[in-house]
């Protein structure tokens, strides 16, 4: 038996680097206390059972936020190049600048406040370390012509970044949102929290692109709250990542809501991608549909946990969930668990999860027509994963996404 090397005391390490400005903030101080008392999720944590985050953080260089603001060129990432965007930039986790194409988008900052239902240590950690809350607002009744692009840049000076923002889609507004990191190779820990409030009759298309950060460890807490008659469609696309835990929470807080959650994860090497999702139906007569798919290669790990809550008053809810996986190697693994808790009695809910290998007979069929093995693999995998992004409406990015996914699949 080998004995684990001396455990770093991450809590005291973090305590010593708490930013001065957040020490004086009541919300931040309170959050820190809760975090300190609870600590990081350990091996026995049910929620982080398959994502050993504490062990992962111990592998990183000393955690500390970048001191002060850093001046850094922040060009649009390649994914967005040539596109007009409402561009919102975070550097080292701090709001840095906004370059807005449309006047109906406003960005303000205000002092930190904690969500009343924050219950994950990483949400508290974010609140304790974020200098301020960045609030993005889309004016009532406005359909934005250009996407809102929220991009995290890193200077490499901080090893702990805590981006934090709230997006308010006011009544009847419509927006496409992309959130991504500017690709970098720094070894750092990103602990993000964001909340999107989709007000009555608003409409959201939301892409979370996780690509090009091969050394980054991430915990992302993402919340989408849907008011009556709103529409939300979200895609979490995890391609080139090292260790990613996504906590995606969709709160259906009104009737006549239509919400779609899509996810696609393609880990390889030794990486881990863990998607924990919650769909919380709190009001009657709404619809949610969730589809997550993964292809695990090499020694990588995938995790899916999908909770659906249908509260007692949420009658006539339609909630569907599906998680499908393909393992390409004997050393790859996936842990998948649907978790439905239904209190209402007049609902339609379904869930399903599958894990399998690539169909050898289909592979032979394609090859017997002259298609080389690699292309045949990619073709079959593409066919397997495509429905996670072809259903999205984001016409301007579909082709780019398809290209990213295809080139990723050609590498397996």
């Amino acid at each position: 038996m080998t004995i684990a090397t001396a455990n770093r005391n991450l809590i005291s390490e973090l305590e010593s680097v708490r930013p001065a400005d957040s020490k004086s903030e009541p919300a931040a101080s309170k959050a820190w206390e809760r975090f300190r008392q609870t600590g990081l999720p350990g091996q026995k944590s049910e929620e982080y059972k398959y994502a050993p985050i504490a062990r992962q953080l111990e592998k990183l260089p000393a955690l500390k936020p970048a001191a002060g603001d850093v001046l850094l060129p922040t060009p649009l990432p390649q994914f967005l190049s040539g596109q007009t965007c409402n561009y919102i930039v975070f550097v080292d986790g701090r709001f840095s600048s906004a370059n807005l194409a449309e006047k109906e988008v406003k960005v303000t900052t205000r002092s930190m406040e904690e969500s009343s239902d924050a219950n994950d240590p990483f949400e508290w950690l974010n609140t304790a370390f974020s200098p301020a809350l960045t609030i993005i607002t889309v004016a009532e009744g406005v359909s934005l012509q250009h996407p809102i692009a929220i991009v995290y840049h890193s200077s490499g000076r901080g090893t702990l970044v805590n981006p934090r923002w709230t997006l308010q889609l006011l009544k009847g507004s419509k927006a496409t949102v992309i959130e991504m990191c500017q690709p970098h190779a720094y070894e750092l820990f990103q602990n993000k929290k964001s909340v999107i409030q989709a007000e009555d009759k608003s409409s959201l298309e939301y892409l979370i692109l996780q690509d090009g950060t091969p050394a980054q460890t991430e915990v992302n807490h993402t919340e989408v709250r849907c008011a009556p008659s709103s529409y939300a469609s979200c895609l979490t696309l995890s391609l080139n990542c090292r260790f990613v835990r996504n906590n995606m929470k969709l709160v259906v807080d009104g009737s006549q809501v239509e919400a779609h959650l899509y996810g696609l994860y393609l880990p390889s090497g030794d990486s881990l991608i863990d998607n924990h999702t919650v769909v919380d139906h709190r009001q009657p007569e709404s619809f949610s549909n969730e589809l997550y798919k993964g292809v695990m290669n090499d020694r990588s790990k995938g995790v899916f946990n999908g909770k659906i809550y249908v509260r007692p008053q949420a009658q006539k809810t339609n909630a569907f969930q599906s998680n499908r996986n393909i393992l390409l190697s004997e050393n790859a693994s996936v842990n998948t668990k649907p978790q439905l808790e239904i209190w209402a009695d007049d609902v339609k809910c379904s869930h399903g999860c599958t894990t399998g290998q690539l169909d050898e007979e289909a592979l032979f069929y394609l090859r017997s027509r002259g298609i080389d093995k690699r292309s045949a693999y990619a073709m079959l995998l593409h066919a397997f994963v495509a429905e996670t992004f072809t259903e999205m409406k984001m016409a301007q990015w579909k082709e780019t996404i398809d290209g990213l996914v295809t080139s990723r699949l050609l590498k397996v």
Partner: protein
Amino acid sequence: MLHIHNLRAGIEGKEILKGINLDVKPGEVHAIMGPNGSGKSTLASVLSGREEYEVTEGEVTFMGKNLLEMEPEDRAREGIFLAFQYPVEIPGVSTVNFMKTAINQIRTYRGQEPLDAVAFLKLMKEKMKLVEIDQSLLNRALNEGFSGGEKKRNEIFQMAMLEPRLSILDETDSGLDIDALRIVANGVNKLRNPSNATVVVTHYQRLLNYIVPDYVHVLFNGRIVKSGDKELALELEKKGYDWIKNEPATA
């Protein structure tokens, strides 16, 4: 064109082909008949390169090249086509896209320019007509939800598109009603020319009324025990396979 000498092969340690000899020349149609379990499909599988089959002895050359050393895709690129007994359903891949990839990879292999969209479409239209298949079928996911007849027609369509030198039809008649059988056979006949060859693997003589063979071989217990012309097929139809089983091996 195809030369098989003393081919022995099996699966999971069990020998199924016990010394096959066969020569196929351009322009010829060979029928391989035999009772269930005689090794007909194994022969088709070995020729097309199914990896689960193991060749233990013998040699197979195609156009002078050692076929057994080639990957399945290279066999296709050299001009071998296998029409599957059970064509695979592949959700999410349309026949059109898949054919375009296949044709262009084959063309690249042969040092030809890939077809552009217009040229591909033109070729497809022409071949669709030849095998009487509808475009709507080809835009759908490959074989997904196709009837037995539609699947087999799609096989012949692919064969028409790829213009193979040697086509191996593995029990193409199974699961076909008489109309579908006629359409499939017509397609095959229209594709025949003096420079290509066809091997028809079948249990029944029925298909051979439509695709008339030059040679008929009877496979039994892993060996070709009798060869003849189309009259042999008719004799088999009349007498059944027991007649062959009771004769001493001649090969």
